[in-house]
């Protein structure tokens, strides 16, 4: 069976072109800013993979980003060489996610509850880390530092050669490779049966159960994979910022990644990536001035996007583009079946004012997508 229209195809042309652009970028510009944009893009990609294709919205994905950052910092201070810390920064968030995910999904909680629980998890981490000032709060040689965080740890080095630090330009390339690599991994996952089952679960969990799939197992698996990618992004962030503070776990951080993903487009992989890069850039530019508050704009943007283009910019553009090509094809006298990109959202489909979803019900009632609404 060929690639599913609902999942989309790997577009090698675009991918390779983007890869070339990214690889050659340092020739024309300083890489400090592009590096953080790539890191944020990876973070958003991890959320977009889980949300867009499995329908799982984590309100506190920053938890795994932060865990990756802190794990790297603590590990590299204790171990001295960076290879193991990087691996740990991927594995630890994944393990935590597996535990929390299993608890949530095997308990068959609704998506609203998942939102609440994931939010609370990142809150707990935030509060805990903020309160760890003082020498008694340390893991091995690494003092947790409370609100001030952990500064001054070693940046990634060439594996096996701890004296050769990869700070600066090499860091940029590590970020590029990470993003491109995770994108490929995501595409690969989606092309497998695993990815298709995820999409099925997003569409109608109950039916997938009735087809013999163990829905909780699939959800836990994708949640874990997503957390691993977020952890990698967090690890890279620690290396870029050279300090980790509890802010990585903050509600602000959790909200930002959701906004980037939603604006970019839930239901695609490229949407969250572009959204993160664009809005990340906006955030950096805005951060330098104080006239208009960052929160205000971000908040306004989120409200407008949810109201006006709930599927996000990229799918809206895709839909517009397809609409145009279909119009042209129809004018030319052909009939084209239109494969539709689904609009996966956690919300339910009601367009009327009646309150249909009670949070106590199980997941499937919520996830009827708004494919027919555009």
């Amino acid at each position: 069976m060929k690639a599913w229209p609902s999942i989309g195809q790997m577009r090698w042309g675009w991918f390779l072109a983007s890869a070339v652009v990214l690889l050659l970028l340092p020739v024309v510009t300083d890489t400090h800013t592009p590096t953080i944009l790539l890191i944020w893009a990876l973070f958003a990609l991890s959320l977009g993979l889980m949300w867009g294709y499995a329908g799982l919205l984590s309100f506190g994905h920053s938890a795994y980003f932060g865990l990756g950052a802190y794990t790297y910092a603590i590990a590299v201070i204790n171990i001295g060489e960076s290879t193991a810390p990087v691996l740990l920064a991927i594995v630890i968030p994944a393990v935590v996610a597996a535990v929390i995910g299993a608890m949530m999904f095997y308990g068959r909680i609704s998506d609203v509850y998942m939102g609440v629980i994931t939010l609370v998890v990142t809150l707990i981490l935030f509060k805990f880390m903020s309160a760890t000032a003082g020498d008694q709060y340390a893991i091995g040689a690494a003092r947790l530092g409370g609100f001030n965080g952990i500064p001054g740890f070693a940046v990634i080095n060439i594996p096996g050669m701890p004296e050769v630090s990869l700070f600066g330009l090499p860091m940029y390339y590590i970020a590029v490779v990470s993003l491109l690599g995770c994108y490929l991994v995501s595409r690969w996952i989606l092309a497998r049966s695993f990815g298709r089952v995820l999409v099925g679960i997003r569409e109608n969990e109950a039916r997938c159960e009735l087809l013999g799939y163990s829905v909780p197992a699939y959800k836990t698996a994708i949640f874990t994979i997503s957390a691993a990618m977020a952890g990698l992004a967090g690890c890279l962030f620690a290396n870029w910022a050279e300090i980790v503070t509890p802010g990585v776990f903050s509600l602000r951080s959790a909200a930002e990644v959701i906004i980037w993903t939603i604006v970019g487009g839930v239901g695609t992989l490229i949407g969250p990536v572009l959204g993160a890069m664009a809005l990340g850039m906006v955030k950096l530019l805005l951060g330098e001035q104080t006239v208009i508050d960052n929160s205000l704009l971000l908040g306004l943007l989120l409200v407008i996007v949810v109201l006006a283009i709930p599927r996000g910019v990229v799918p809206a553009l895709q839909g517009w583009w397809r609409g145009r090509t279909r119009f042209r094809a129809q004018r030319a006298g052909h009939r084209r079946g239109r494969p539709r990109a689904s609009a996966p959202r956690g919300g339910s489909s009601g367009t009327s004012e009646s309150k249909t979803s009670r949070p106590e019900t199980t997941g499937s009632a919520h996830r009827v997508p708004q494919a027919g609404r555009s």
Partner: protein
Amino acid sequence: MSDAVVETIDLTMRFGGVTAVDRVNFALKERELRCLIGPNGAGKSTFFKCLTGQHRLSGANGRVLIRGADVVGMRPHEIVRMGVGIKTQVPSVLNGLTVMENLWLAARRAHGWTRATAEVQRVIDEVGLGDIARRTVGELAHGQRQMVEIGIVLAQDPWLILLDEPAAGITGAEVERLVTLIQQINQNASVIVVDHDMEFVRMLGARITVFYQGAVLTEGPAEQVLTDARVREVYIGNRA
């Protein structure tokens, strides 16, 4: 009865103070086609959900045996993996995906990646979904979605098929098509159909079990049950 492929022993299901299924003993033979009928609230859908695992059962509810194995406490996906195909009362299909994608997911789990595509084609031919194979299910009419769901069930090649109100919302020629299809699949599979469309049930012409107030009122061949005065009474509410 050891030749029963589906058996319930004293199956009981209570919701709060209401006994929806009251110590029902039921048996289905290999390759039998059985219709479960009864007025609203008679307990037939609840009974159905006990068979499919959609109601989580415990030992206190009685016993449910599928090919001799006690499935009490099993989740729906575990029961499905025993080779049972389930169509629910509320149409349960994957609206955002195409018909072929829906069928593929069903076939993939049962047959594996390499055979899935062939199985999908088989079902498309068998159920007659060729015209709509590439359409998104959400766009289809209700009757078409019902047929797609039956296709999803068949794609798993089950030996036991449980259909809850397959004729709901469809009329005329589509109903005839459905009857023919069910009789066709009954040649290789055991089938239980729950419905209260009397015309549809009459056309199927199978053995009928009548539910009333959570218990089995009567059971027998179609012509006999459908002319039974007690059955008419519970449906219409007067002595005819």
